[in-house]
């Protein structure tokens, strides 16, 4: 073995420890889950959108529109009753019901744009949930272009030749009927409005979690933990003291970060034509209280989990690595929730997102806007139970010698690699 190989082998043995490998494997697993979700979305884009169509017009121009829709969409209802059509669309998990009004063609020839009523069935408020409605919207635009083309080719002199149609949109989402807005407008405003809690949550978890794990790593590295554990103080007080101290420091850091982030966001001057209050999507004091409770308990859960991971930290360096899975657990739900609504996620992702305690405060605000109190309360109950179990485990660990002797080890793996 050459000197160089000898040094390389030594470096690898030093660096490839379970505490560096396991967090990376966990991160890879989480990214894999995210990739799986994105792949599912790509499949969704390839599929024809499912719609219903009521054509009350018997003119030639509405035929141009229906031909395009027939070619590029799967039409599952072609009756004449809106209520019936909507039921069918809901049943078949369709995207929209389009109603081409009577005198559509006649109106266009008489210089009045033809009305297309669109009833959007919105299933989720994530950015990617409005993909299918976007496709239908594109088809309506394509139909309008074809009508314009026909008008120009037939030498029809009309003032509305370039914009022969207009949409009258109604979006139905979680039993709320919102007139005059499209799903993409709603998801856009909801994402921007409800993104603040996920970002705050992610920052708090990253800051406080990192502080707790590092604190344990430093106690072990500086050899102060043994002294602390022989002092006449209850182990539960040591645990709570460490969690509370780290929480205060982490919160302070998160607040400083959020102030900066707030200024950054406000400088972008983001505004929207849609007012959530007009749509009945506002939160009351009780709702904000529930969001606060959810954030607080999730923070406790995060810190307890970090304390458990911290007991495996042998020093400051390994503590930093052990923080990675916590960061991933905070980032994953934030991105998933931004992209897709919980209700529209594949089952496996639903289970993963529900199991991650930090997801619940991130989802709480949007759920409360649609009066889904049960989901929020179940989420709070879940993270409360999770926190209690984590606290119990960490107090148990502190009550035994494991707090001093615990370290990540993969004996079989180690033998093979090293």
């Amino acid at each position, binding site marked *: 073995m050459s000197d160089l190989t000898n040094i390389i082998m030594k470096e690898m043995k030093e660096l490839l420890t379970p505490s560096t490998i396991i967090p990376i494997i966990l991160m890879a697993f989480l990214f894999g889950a995210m990739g799986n979700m994105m792949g599912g979305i790509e499949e969704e884009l390839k599929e024809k959108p499912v719609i219903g169509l009521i054509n009350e017009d018997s003119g030639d121009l509405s035929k141009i529109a229906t031909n395009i829709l027939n070619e590029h969409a799967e039409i599952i209802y072609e009756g004449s009753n809106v209520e019936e059509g909507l039921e069918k669309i809901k049943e078949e998990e369709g995207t929209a019901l389009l109603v081409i009004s009577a005198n559509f063609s006649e109106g266009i020839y008489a210089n009045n744009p033809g009305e297309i009523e669109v009833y959007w069935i919105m299933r989720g408020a994530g950015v990617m949930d409005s993909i299918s409605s976007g496709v239908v919207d594109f088809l309506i635009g394509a139909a309008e272009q074809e009508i314009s083309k026909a008008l120009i080719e037939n030498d029809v002199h009309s003032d509305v030749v370039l914009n022969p149609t207009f949409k009258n949109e109604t979006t139905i989402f979680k039993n709320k009927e919102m007139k005059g807005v499209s799903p993409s407008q709603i998801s856009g405003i909801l994402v921007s409005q409800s993104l603040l809690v996920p970002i705050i949550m992610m920052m708090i978890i990253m800051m406080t979690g990192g502080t707790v794990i590092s604190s344990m790593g430093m106690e072990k590295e*500086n*050899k*102060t933990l*043994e*002294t602390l*554990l*022989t*002092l*006449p*103080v*209850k182990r539960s007080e040591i645990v709570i003291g460490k969690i509370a101290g780290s929480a205060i420091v982490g919160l302070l850091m998160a607040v400083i970060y959020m102030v900066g982030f707030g200024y950054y966001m406000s400088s972008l001057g983001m505004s929207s034509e849609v007012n959530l209050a007009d749509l009945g999507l506002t939160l009351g004091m009780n709702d904000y209280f529930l969001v606060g409770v959810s954030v607080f308990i999730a923070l406790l859960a995060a810190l307890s989990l970090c304390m458990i991971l911290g007991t495996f930290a042998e020093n400051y360096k390994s503590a930093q690595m052990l923080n990675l899975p916590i960061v991933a657990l905070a980032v994953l739900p934030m991105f998933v929730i931004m992209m897709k609504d919980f209700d529209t996620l594949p089952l496996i992702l639903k289970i993963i997102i529900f199991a991650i305690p930090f997801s619940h405060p991130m989802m709480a605000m949007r759920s409360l806007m649609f009066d889904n109190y049960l989901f929020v309360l179940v989420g709070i109950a879940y993270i409360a139970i999770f926190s209690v179990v984590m606290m119990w485990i960490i107090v148990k660990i502190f009550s*035994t*010698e494991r707090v*001093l*002797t615990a370290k990540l080890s993969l004996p079989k793996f180690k033998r093979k690699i090293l």
Partner: protein
Amino acid sequence: MNKAIEIIDLIKDFGKIRAVDGTSFDVSEGEIFGLIGPNGAGKTTILRIISTLLQVTSGEVKVFDYDVTKDASEVRKLISYLPEDAGAYKNLTGKSYLTFIAKFFGNGKKVSEIVEKGVKIASLEERINDKVDTYSKGMMRRLLVGRALMIDPKLAILDEPTSGLDVINAQEVRHIIKDSTKRGTTVLLSSHNMLEVEFLCDTIALINEGKIVEEGKPQELKKKYNATNIEEVFIGVVQ
């Protein structure tokens, strides 16, 4: 004389490794008792068990009649443990560190008295107000000895108290330890420095491969093995 420590048939396993193998010994109140043995003999494991940090696999360990497993919280009120390679919180000053520890043993004026005693024992002069991060190894050890003894514990458990210190610092620490017994502290210490143990201890126990192989007063042992110092006694016993 009352027993400060009573150990009967102590066994401690770490997985498949037996670190302490059926050890029994007593430490009388007010004496300095030394555990002597080579590295890996099981000295630190025994001290950590008495300090309530490690659990007993089998056997019995009592500190002033309190069982270290069942009455761990009572034992912690009586002891002060100085680990071999202990450190202090790097961002605190020496005095802040002593104050942090003192607050677990009293309130108000009592804290100031304890800290004053700690400052005196550590004898770091004005450097006591500097951050621990800036201390040399000798200064750190003196601070920690001050921390361990400032509360006048009933039992001080000192693991290699002069480890890594130069001759002068080591000598000072030995005197501090000897003085502590005048204030009623019983001392259990471990060392592989046989000469140090001979100077400090009233009773010594020689430990090898997790077992006590000999125990007695240094003078008696030297006589028994016809040795000029404890080092020779140890070699005689082990061979």
